[in-house]
């Protein structure tokens, strides 16, 4: 069994409350992240959203909220309709020198089919790095919010 957990930490020039909102308010989530039909930070809440590059081969994400600690921790499972495997995505927030440190943990990536280049760990790693370094950073640190 390979240990393929992905952990990425970044500090943002934004309050913990703002980062929490960016992660949990549907109208804000869709501006930088994903666009589910509905989202509620409640254990057991299920949501889905499309992904992937090719409209002919969509990766429909099936997620269920597993853990919520207000402004501290949000965890949901992350599966793909029609594909084997189940991963878990966790965001943890920490107040840090006037800003917020975000720790993203994605576990269970090794349960996805390893012959699919879309689902290899390096693809997730680059994807999450970009999402935090560019999308979330721009969203939180720009004045257009």
């Amino acid at each position, binding site marked *: 069994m390979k240990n393929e957990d992905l952990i990425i930490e970044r500090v943002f020039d934004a309050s913990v409350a703002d980062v929490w909102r960016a992660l949990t308010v549907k109208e804000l989530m869709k501006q930088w992240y*994903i666009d589910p039909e509905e989202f509620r930070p409640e254990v057991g809440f299920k949501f889905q959203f499309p*992904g*992937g*590059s*090719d*409209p*002919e*081969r969509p*990766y429909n994400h099936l997620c269920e909220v597993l853990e919520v600690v207000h402004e501290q921790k949000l965890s949901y499972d992350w599966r793909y309709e029609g594909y084997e495997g189940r991963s878990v995505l966790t965001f943890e927030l920490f107040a840090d020198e006037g800003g917020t440190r975000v720790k993203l943990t994605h576990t269970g990536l090794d349960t996805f089919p390893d012959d699919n*280049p*879309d*689902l*290899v760990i*390096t*693809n*997730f790693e*680059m*994807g999450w*790095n*970009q*999402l935090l370094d560019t999308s979330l950073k721009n969203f939180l640190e720009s004045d257009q919010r």
Partner: protein
Amino acid sequence: MQMITVKCTIHRPIEKVWELWITPEHIMNWNQANDDWHTPSAINDLKVGGEFVYHMAAKDGSMAFDFRGFYTEVEPCELIVYQLEDGREVTVSMREIEGGTEVVETFDRDDNSIELQQQGWHAILNSFKTYAERMI
């Protein structure tokens, strides 16, 4: 002949970038300079001497042409060289860099201005980047 270069960093692994670059089903999704155009069909016989034909068309039907040529060099995840119908040569090279893949296209200029060609090729490369970086 004067050469023009456009380049771009794709924040994805090189194997994935290569696959999206060469597979007709994907090419049809990303090969466009703007939203008014699309590529309704693509044929790609990726080997030395093999031909490709990307049919590019304005969505309103006002214009269409085939972007076609044949390959003179193919090194998986590294290099593609092809010659266009009019004899111009195009080199596409890829290499792994920190956090992703760098794609560099070098091509002979045609009769249009360098700026115009650079813009057009860059727009398509950007469309590829957006496509490749969509979240899985």
